[in-house]
Protein backbone atom coordinates (compact mmCIF):
# COMPACT_ATOMS: atom_id res chain seq x y z
CA UNK A 1 0.00 0.00 0.00
CA UNK A 2 1.49 3.27 -1.02
CA UNK A 3 0.31 6.76 -0.32
CA UNK A 4 0.99 10.25 -1.51
CA UNK A 5 0.86 13.19 0.89
CA UNK A 6 0.77 16.86 -0.01
CA UNK A 7 1.16 19.76 2.40
CA UNK A 8 0.53 23.30 1.11
CA UNK A 9 1.86 25.89 1.50
CA UNK A 10 5.41 24.61 2.05
CA UNK A 11 7.14 26.09 3.88
CA UNK A 12 4.33 27.48 6.01
CA UNK A 13 4.56 30.38 8.43
CA UNK A 14 4.14 29.60 12.12
CA UNK A 15 0.46 29.76 13.04
CA UNK A 16 -0.71 29.49 9.45
CA UNK A 17 -3.40 26.98 8.51
CA UNK A 18 -2.01 24.37 6.13
CA UNK A 19 -3.92 22.08 3.83
CA UNK A 20 -2.97 18.41 4.13
CA UNK A 21 -4.04 15.91 1.45
CA UNK A 22 -3.45 12.19 1.37
CA UNK A 23 -4.20 9.70 -1.38
CA UNK A 24 -3.85 6.05 -0.38
CA UNK A 25 -3.70 3.19 -2.82
CA UNK A 26 -6.38 0.79 -1.56
CA UNK A 27 -9.28 -1.04 -3.23
CA UNK A 28 -11.79 -0.28 -0.45
CA UNK A 29 -13.52 -3.53 -1.44
CA UNK A 30 -17.19 -3.25 -0.55
CA UNK A 31 -17.98 -6.94 -0.01
CA UNK A 32 -20.85 -6.73 -2.50
CA UNK A 33 -18.90 -7.57 -5.63
CA UNK A 34 -18.35 -11.08 -6.98
CA UNK A 35 -15.41 -12.52 -8.87
CA UNK A 36 -15.56 -14.38 -12.21
CA UNK A 37 -16.64 -17.59 -10.48
CA UNK A 38 -19.46 -15.97 -8.55
CA UNK A 39 -17.73 -15.96 -5.20
CA UNK A 40 -18.24 -12.90 -3.06
CA UNK A 41 -15.06 -10.83 -2.76
CA UNK A 42 -14.71 -10.24 0.99
CA UNK A 43 -15.11 -6.74 2.32
CA UNK A 44 -11.79 -4.97 2.80
CA UNK A 45 -11.91 -1.27 3.59
CA UNK A 46 -9.63 1.01 5.52
CA UNK A 47 -11.65 1.54 8.68
CA UNK A 48 -9.37 3.83 10.65
CA UNK A 49 -6.92 6.49 9.60
CA UNK A 50 -5.04 8.78 11.96
CA UNK A 51 -2.68 11.66 11.40
CA UNK A 52 -0.17 12.70 14.06
CA UNK A 53 1.72 15.96 13.89
CA UNK A 54 4.98 15.59 15.83
CA UNK A 55 3.32 12.86 17.88
CA UNK A 56 0.06 14.71 18.59
CA UNK A 57 -3.08 13.47 16.87
CA UNK A 58 -4.58 16.24 14.73
CA UNK A 59 -7.00 14.26 12.56
CA UNK A 60 -8.70 10.88 12.72
CA UNK A 61 -11.24 9.28 10.42
CA UNK A 62 -13.47 6.21 10.64
CA UNK A 63 -14.03 5.13 7.08
CA UNK A 64 -16.30 2.54 5.43
CA UNK A 65 -17.13 1.14 2.04
CA UNK A 66 -18.89 4.47 1.44
CA UNK A 67 -15.52 6.00 0.65
CA UNK A 68 -14.21 5.59 -2.89
CA UNK A 69 -11.45 3.20 -3.87
CA UNK A 70 -8.03 4.80 -3.41
CA UNK A 71 -9.34 7.05 -0.64
CA UNK A 72 -8.51 10.72 -0.83
CA UNK A 73 -8.76 12.94 2.23
CA UNK A 74 -8.03 16.59 2.63
CA UNK A 75 -8.10 18.46 5.93
CA UNK A 76 -6.41 21.35 7.68
CA UNK A 77 -4.08 21.87 10.56
CA UNK A 78 -2.26 24.77 12.16
CA UNK A 79 1.48 24.85 11.47
CA UNK A 80 3.08 24.98 14.91
CA UNK A 81 6.62 23.70 14.34
CA UNK A 82 8.72 22.00 11.72
CA UNK A 83 8.53 18.27 11.97
CA UNK A 84 6.63 15.35 10.62
CA UNK A 85 3.11 14.29 9.77
CA UNK A 86 2.69 10.59 10.43
CA UNK A 87 -0.28 8.81 8.93
CA UNK A 88 -1.27 5.31 9.90
CA UNK A 89 -4.24 3.26 8.87
CA UNK A 90 -5.67 -0.22 9.22
CA UNK A 91 -8.10 -2.14 7.03
CA UNK A 92 -10.70 -4.86 7.63
CA UNK A 93 -8.09 -7.60 7.04
CA UNK A 94 -5.97 -5.99 9.80
CA UNK A 95 -3.33 -4.92 7.31
CA UNK A 96 -1.67 -1.77 8.59
CA UNK A 97 -0.22 0.98 6.51
CA UNK A 98 1.78 4.05 7.30
CA UNK A 99 3.17 7.07 5.54
CA UNK A 100 4.95 10.19 6.65
CA UNK A 101 5.70 13.59 5.25
CA UNK A 102 7.84 16.43 6.46
CA UNK A 103 6.29 19.75 7.35
CA UNK A 104 8.48 22.84 7.16
CA UNK A 105 7.56 25.87 9.25
CA UNK A 106 9.35 29.19 8.95
CA UNK A 107 9.22 31.94 11.54
Amino acid at each position, binding site marked *: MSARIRVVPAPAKRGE*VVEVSILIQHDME*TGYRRDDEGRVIPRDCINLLTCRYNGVEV*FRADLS*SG*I*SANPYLQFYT*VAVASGELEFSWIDDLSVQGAARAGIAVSE
Partner: protein
Amino acid sequence: MNQPGRRRFVAGLAGAIALVSRAARAQTDQLDPMVWVFTRGVPVQKGRVKLELPLLADNGNSVPLTVTVDSPMSATDYVKSIHLFSEKNPVRDMARFYLGPRGGRAKVVTRVRLAGTQTVTAIAALSDGSFWWDSAHVQVTLSACMDES
Protein backbone atom coordinates in the same frame (compact mmCIF):
# COMPACT_ATOMS: atom_id res chain seq x y z
CA MET B 1 -59.39 -9.48 25.60
CA ASN B 2 -61.36 -7.24 23.33
CA GLN B 3 -59.77 -8.06 19.98
CA PRO B 4 -61.09 -5.19 17.78
CA GLY B 5 -60.29 -2.72 20.51
CA ARG B 6 -56.77 -3.99 20.84
CA ARG B 7 -56.33 -3.95 17.07
CA ARG B 8 -57.53 -0.38 16.90
CA PHE B 9 -55.10 0.52 19.68
CA VAL B 10 -52.17 -1.17 17.91
CA ALA B 11 -53.08 0.50 14.62
CA GLY B 12 -53.32 3.86 16.36
CA LEU B 13 -49.96 3.31 18.02
CA ALA B 14 -48.34 2.42 14.69
CA GLY B 15 -49.89 5.52 13.15
CA ALA B 16 -48.61 7.71 15.96
CA ILE B 17 -45.11 6.28 15.61
CA ALA B 18 -45.23 6.85 11.84
CA LEU B 19 -46.35 10.46 12.37
CA VAL B 20 -43.65 11.12 14.95
CA SER B 21 -40.98 9.59 12.75
CA ARG B 22 -42.13 11.61 9.76
CA ALA B 23 -41.94 14.81 11.78
CA ALA B 24 -38.49 13.80 12.95
CA ARG B 25 -37.37 12.91 9.44
CA ALA B 26 -38.07 16.49 8.45
CA GLN B 27 -35.31 17.50 10.82
CA THR B 28 -32.55 15.01 10.04
CA ASP B 29 -33.88 11.77 11.41
CA GLN B 30 -33.86 12.45 15.15
CA LEU B 31 -35.19 8.98 15.78
CA ASP B 32 -32.85 7.29 13.36
CA PRO B 33 -30.91 4.93 15.66
CA MET B 34 -27.66 5.72 13.89
CA VAL B 35 -28.08 9.44 14.45
CA TRP B 36 -29.34 8.86 17.98
CA VAL B 37 -26.25 6.86 18.95
CA PHE B 38 -24.21 9.87 17.89
CA THR B 39 -26.32 12.71 19.31
CA ARG B 40 -27.92 10.95 22.30
CA GLY B 41 -31.16 12.75 21.65
CA VAL B 42 -29.72 16.27 21.61
CA PRO B 43 -31.61 18.28 18.97
CA VAL B 44 -29.72 18.69 15.71
CA GLN B 45 -29.98 22.21 14.34
CA LYS B 46 -29.92 23.20 10.69
CA GLY B 47 -27.10 25.52 9.68
CA ARG B 48 -23.40 26.23 10.26
CA VAL B 49 -22.56 23.05 8.31
CA LYS B 50 -22.20 23.27 4.54
CA LEU B 51 -22.20 20.00 2.60
CA GLU B 52 -21.20 20.32 -1.03
CA LEU B 53 -21.86 17.54 -3.51
CA PRO B 54 -22.49 17.73 -7.25
CA LEU B 55 -26.18 17.85 -8.23
CA LEU B 56 -25.56 15.15 -10.79
CA ALA B 57 -22.96 12.39 -10.57
CA ASP B 58 -22.38 10.23 -13.64
CA ASN B 59 -20.60 7.58 -11.63
CA GLY B 60 -21.50 6.78 -8.04
CA ASN B 61 -18.15 5.12 -7.44
CA SER B 62 -16.37 8.40 -6.90
CA VAL B 63 -18.31 11.52 -6.01
CA PRO B 64 -16.39 14.54 -4.70
CA LEU B 65 -17.65 15.72 -1.32
CA THR B 66 -16.72 18.81 0.67
CA VAL B 67 -18.00 19.51 4.16
CA THR B 68 -17.30 22.80 5.88
CA VAL B 69 -18.37 23.93 9.35
CA ASP B 70 -18.58 27.57 10.36
CA SER B 71 -16.40 27.53 13.47
CA PRO B 72 -13.48 29.64 14.76
CA MET B 73 -11.58 26.43 15.63
CA SER B 74 -10.12 28.05 18.73
CA ALA B 75 -9.04 26.20 21.88
CA THR B 76 -12.48 26.71 23.44
CA ASP B 77 -14.78 26.66 20.41
CA TYR B 78 -14.06 23.99 17.85
CA VAL B 79 -15.60 21.17 15.86
CA LYS B 80 -15.18 17.78 17.52
CA SER B 81 -16.39 15.56 14.74
CA ILE B 82 -18.30 15.41 11.49
CA HIS B 83 -20.39 12.37 10.59
CA LEU B 84 -21.62 11.51 7.11
CA PHE B 85 -24.82 9.53 6.70
CA SER B 86 -26.11 8.05 3.48
CA GLU B 87 -29.78 7.50 2.81
CA LYS B 88 -29.46 4.48 0.52
CA ASN B 89 -26.01 2.95 0.77
CA PRO B 90 -25.89 -0.58 2.23
CA VAL B 91 -23.52 0.89 4.82
CA ARG B 92 -25.29 4.06 5.89
CA ASP B 93 -22.63 5.22 8.31
CA MET B 94 -20.28 6.46 5.59
CA ALA B 95 -17.53 8.18 7.52
CA ARG B 96 -16.69 10.04 10.69
CA PHE B 97 -14.01 12.68 10.87
CA TYR B 98 -12.56 13.73 14.20
CA LEU B 99 -11.09 17.20 14.25
CA GLY B 100 -9.96 19.35 17.14
CA PRO B 101 -8.64 22.75 18.17
CA ARG B 102 -5.44 22.00 16.24
CA GLY B 103 -7.41 21.83 13.01
CA GLY B 104 -7.39 25.53 12.23
CA ARG B 105 -10.20 25.21 9.69
CA ALA B 106 -13.19 22.89 9.90
CA LYS B 107 -13.18 21.54 6.38
CA VAL B 108 -12.81 18.02 5.02
CA VAL B 109 -12.72 16.99 1.38
CA THR B 110 -13.04 13.39 0.21
CA ARG B 111 -14.59 11.22 -2.46
CA VAL B 112 -17.50 8.94 -1.67
CA ARG B 113 -19.40 6.02 -3.14
CA LEU B 114 -23.13 6.41 -3.61
CA ALA B 115 -25.49 3.51 -4.33
CA GLY B 116 -28.07 5.43 -6.31
CA THR B 117 -29.79 8.80 -6.23
CA GLN B 118 -30.11 9.91 -2.63
CA THR B 119 -29.68 12.53 0.05
CA VAL B 120 -26.42 12.64 2.00
CA THR B 121 -26.47 14.19 5.46
CA ALA B 122 -23.58 15.65 7.43
CA ILE B 123 -23.88 16.22 11.18
CA ALA B 124 -21.21 18.13 13.07
CA ALA B 125 -20.61 17.87 16.82
CA LEU B 126 -19.25 21.07 18.32
CA SER B 127 -17.21 21.47 21.49
CA ASP B 128 -20.12 23.25 23.23
CA GLY B 129 -22.24 20.11 22.88
CA SER B 130 -24.46 21.34 20.06
CA PHE B 131 -25.13 19.49 16.82
CA TRP B 132 -25.62 21.03 13.40
CA TRP B 133 -26.56 19.46 10.10
CA ASP B 134 -26.82 19.98 6.38
CA SER B 135 -27.80 17.66 3.57
CA ALA B 136 -27.37 17.50 -0.17
CA HIS B 137 -29.30 15.60 -2.80
CA VAL B 138 -27.33 13.85 -5.53
CA GLN B 139 -28.72 12.41 -8.73
CA VAL B 140 -26.58 9.34 -9.48
CA THR B 141 -26.72 7.95 -13.02
CA LEU B 142 -24.57 4.85 -12.48
CA SER B 143 -24.72 3.64 -8.92
CA ALA B 144 -21.85 2.10 -6.96
CA CYS B 145 -21.57 -0.96 -4.70
CA MET B 146 -24.56 -2.95 -5.77
CA ASP B 147 -23.45 -4.03 -9.22
CA GLU B 148 -22.38 -7.64 -9.47
CA SER B 149 -19.96 -7.06 -12.32
